[in-house]
């Protein structure tokens, strides 16, 4: 047993208690901040919060590449197709700027004035690709593949994504783009006319 110390005066004991309480109030949030910082960064990567508006026909730097919206156009009405829906294709021109741009978890979606969000079709049938291709243009690649990650800096990559939307087309359709390293910022291309 350690030899007993002289009795504390009541005054210093109360002060020690106050110091302890204040220390907890200060240390606890800091501990949570430090241990949760990495998780907070991951949460930010998953959500697209901050829109970056892009004027029409302008190119913008995003996640190590220059991105420009080429066009979005829809399938013309066809007797063989259901009347209440149509397919659209959005084409972007991506020029990687830095070597080894890894575009991971790329999401290109269509949004409208009422904040509806249409995600790209995952497996695109060849028939649809051919129906929406314009004559004489370069074949585009999907955004979720390695087309952008493996392109050399300065090369031009056309990225196509396809959507199924109701007809008549909703008002205010815009294309949005976000990647894992670019989030929470995402590109929001201004509404051009959908052809």
């Amino acid at each position, binding site marked *: 047993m350690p030899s007993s110390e002289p009795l504390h005066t009541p005054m210093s004991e109360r002060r020690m208690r106050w110091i302890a309480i204040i220390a907890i109030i200060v240390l606890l949030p800091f501990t949570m901040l430090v241990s949760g910082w990495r998780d907070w960064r991951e949460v930010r990567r998953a959500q697209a919060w901050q829109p970056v508006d892009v004027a029409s026909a302008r190119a913008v730097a995003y996640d190590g590449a220059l991105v420009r919206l080429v066009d979005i156009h829809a399938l013309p009405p066809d007797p063989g197709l259901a009347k209440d*829906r149509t397919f659209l294709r959005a084409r972007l021109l991506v020029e990687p700027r830095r070597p080894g741009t890894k575009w991971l978890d790329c999401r290109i*979606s269509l949004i409208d004035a009422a*904040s*509806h969000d249409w*995600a790209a*079709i995952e497996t695109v049938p060849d028939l649809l690709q051919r129906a929406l291709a314009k004559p004489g243009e370069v074949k585009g690649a999907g955004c979720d593949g390695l087309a952008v990650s493996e392109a050399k800096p300065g090369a031009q990559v056309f990225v196509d994504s396809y*959507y*199924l*939307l*109701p007809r008549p087309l909703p008002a205010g359709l815009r294309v949005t783009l976000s990647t894992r390293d670019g989030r929470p910022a995402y590109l929001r291309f201004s509404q051009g006319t959908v052809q």
Partner: protein
Amino acid sequence: MKRFGPIAIILIGLLVLAGMRWTMPRYERITGPIAFAGKPDAWVDTGNLAVRAGPPQLARTIRFKALGKVEERTSAGIWLVVPVRSRVDHATAHVYGRIWVTPDGRRYRASGRVEDGDVVLTGTKTLQPGLERKDLVVFELPAELANGEGALLLSEERDPQLTAQARITYPAAVPASPAKLLDLDELHAKL
């Protein structure tokens, strides 16, 4: 009175702790799906996904078109086919969770034997905002359990945890004798 003060505090503490322990829901309930209850033939809105389930049909054999061919499926029990209309309010979604809960608590997942059916609601079918879908959800149940009573659980996620799940309860019905052969495409066309 002073002596009983600490004892009383301990006893009250014990009572409060025991009460908290006995009334605490299980962990799987706390972290489980957020249920949205509904009745058949009524829209159940879960935030993004909204579903409307119709009356179930029972059959011993089903026939459906899949990938260009006509397939038939027999069963050791009985097929339970529920017509479902679904739509999404905000963003593109799939219905990955399709479960039938029987009155005795067993959970049957939608049958994987009809995955390729054109009119069957599977995880590959996509719901787009503005486009409503009409599909059939198909379950395979033991004959003694299939009288149309149970609950249909539909959710965007396969195992929803703290995400929405629509729960449509079917009351006990007078058991109609199951059809010998049910053509799913015909049933879908009538919806």
